[in-house]
């Protein structure tokens, strides 16, 4: 019995730690984008390295939780749901990491007049993920407040979409960007950043269904 209680405490710790990694990935992303926009590439590269290590550690934690869930037959009723949430969050970290890697590989030239919008988009994206982590955390501890956080996720995702649209409009309306290739590249980067908040919202929708299943 004591062993089982100890195991449960460890599992709680692992899930908490995993969620912390997801949250950190969004914060690192936001910082890295700011540094890129400020042309501080050295610090940007450090952030990229940081998110790479974080992804590896998050993967390890996710597998550990999965193994324990199935080995010890925990939460049989909602085990599939919990696993799906963790898998979706993993996808979120991957999308975040890939978005930063694209900056590193392609080194897009962001015009000064649009940098603030890119930083806004990054901020809203990070906030979406942050609220999603709060919602997932509440799913584990207090399902009555999951909806509050889910509403915030939807709000920030909507704001991120608006900024994404603004960037696209500016990019294709201005005559300060010379080539079509540059315009398409900037649109691509805006879309890839907004994709993070889209993924976060889709996890949130799943969560809303899983909450109903958790009602006694």
């Amino acid at each position, binding site marked *: 019995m004591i062993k*089982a209680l100890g195991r449960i405490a460890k599992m*709680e710790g692992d899930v908490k730690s995993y969620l912390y990694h997801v949250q950190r990935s969004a914060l690192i992303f936001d910082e890295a984008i700011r540094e890129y926009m400020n042309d501080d590439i050295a610090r940007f590269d450090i952030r990229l390295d940081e998110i790479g290590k974080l992804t590896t550690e998050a993967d390890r934690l996710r597998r550990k939780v999965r193994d324990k869930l199935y080995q010890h037959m*925990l*939460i049989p*009723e909602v085990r599939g749901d*919990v696993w799906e949430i963790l898998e979706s969050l993993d996808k979120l970290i991957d999308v975040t990491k890939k978005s930063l890697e694209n900056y590193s590989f392609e080194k897009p030239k962001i015009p000064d007049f649009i940098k603030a919008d890119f930083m806004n988009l990054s901020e809203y994206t990070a906030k979406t993920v942050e609220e999603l982590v709060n919602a997932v955390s509440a799913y*584990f501890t*207090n399902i*009555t407040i999951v909806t509050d956080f889910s509403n915030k996720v939807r709000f920030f995702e909507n704001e991120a979409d608006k900024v994404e649209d603004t960037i696209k409009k500016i990019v294709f309306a201005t005559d300060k960007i010379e080539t079509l290739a540059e315009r398409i590249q900037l649109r691509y980067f805006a879309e890839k950043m907004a994709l993070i908040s889209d993924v976060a919202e889709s996890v949130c929708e799943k969560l809303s269904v899983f909450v109903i299943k958790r009602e*006694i």
Partner: protein
Amino acid sequence: MLSILFFLSSGLFLGWSLGANDAANVFGTAVTSRMIKFKTAAIICSIFVIIGAVAGGAGAASTLGELGSINALAGAFIVALSAALTVLFMTRAMLPVSTSQSIVGGIIGWNFFAGVHTDAGVFTKIAATWVICPVLAMVFAFVLFFIAKVYVKNSKLHLFRQDSRTRIGLIVIGAFGSYSLGANNIANVMGVFVPSSPLKDLSIEGLLTITGTQQLFFIGGVAIAVGVFTYSRRVMEMVGNNIFTLSPISALIVVMSASMVLFLFASKGLYDLLQSAGLPTIPLVPVSSSQAVVGAVIGIGLAKGGRNLHLGVVGRISMGWVLTPVISALLTFISLYFMQNVFMNTVYQ
């Protein structure tokens, strides 16, 4: 000895059938939802059913005795056999059936055959409990649902911790349910054999005396345990997957409510306590654990706002209240005739 065992065999068959069917009411959802392993459930269920039968079975059995004291072993054999066959037929016909109602029908059939007067007061008391049992379980489940809801909301337990506590709850309540099942339902299995039982009291070194009735109930308890181990898994899978799909906490509430009802109708201690306090007593009568479970599930359904509630099941249960004792009584009457006139056995003194 061999003839005693032969005559007891119908009771043992009834016990086996009870173990096979009713263990699912206690541990069915816990096992099928994989909250508890079948082996763990079967061991706990068997141990506590036997303890309940031996330690607490006397109360409900004595009420059945008041309805009709079957004074010949062959008569008791027929009553138990007819009750078991009625349960089998009704189950095959997919009609809700209760061993308690079946055995009562059998006793009344014997009363008619033997020309013994059936005490209308006792019969009314027993029949009333058939209605009260599911209704009471429904009320318990309704109230417990809201208590559980408030507890889950306020305790803010982590999902894993809640799962662990539910698991412990299912084991503890399952043990209580098994005890109550043994205490309440052993009367159905072995009650009719009590007046004609040839088993004598056993004294162990003068320290402990095991009465003949307790020995009889122990044998019946073992038969129930065999039923649990050999056949209940299939029934559990059927109950867990087809009849109702409940969350583990709701399942816990259902088992708790049904167990409380079975306990109330079996506890001699509670009966004496209420009597000594001058309060109205709860009759000690064997009731149906299946119908208690159905009542509790309806209670949960009502607490959830009455969604997905199939009230048709209530009508089917009501039909069982009438059909089961009537069929069992008729079958007993006819079988007693054959036992007496064809097989030349004394079926009443």
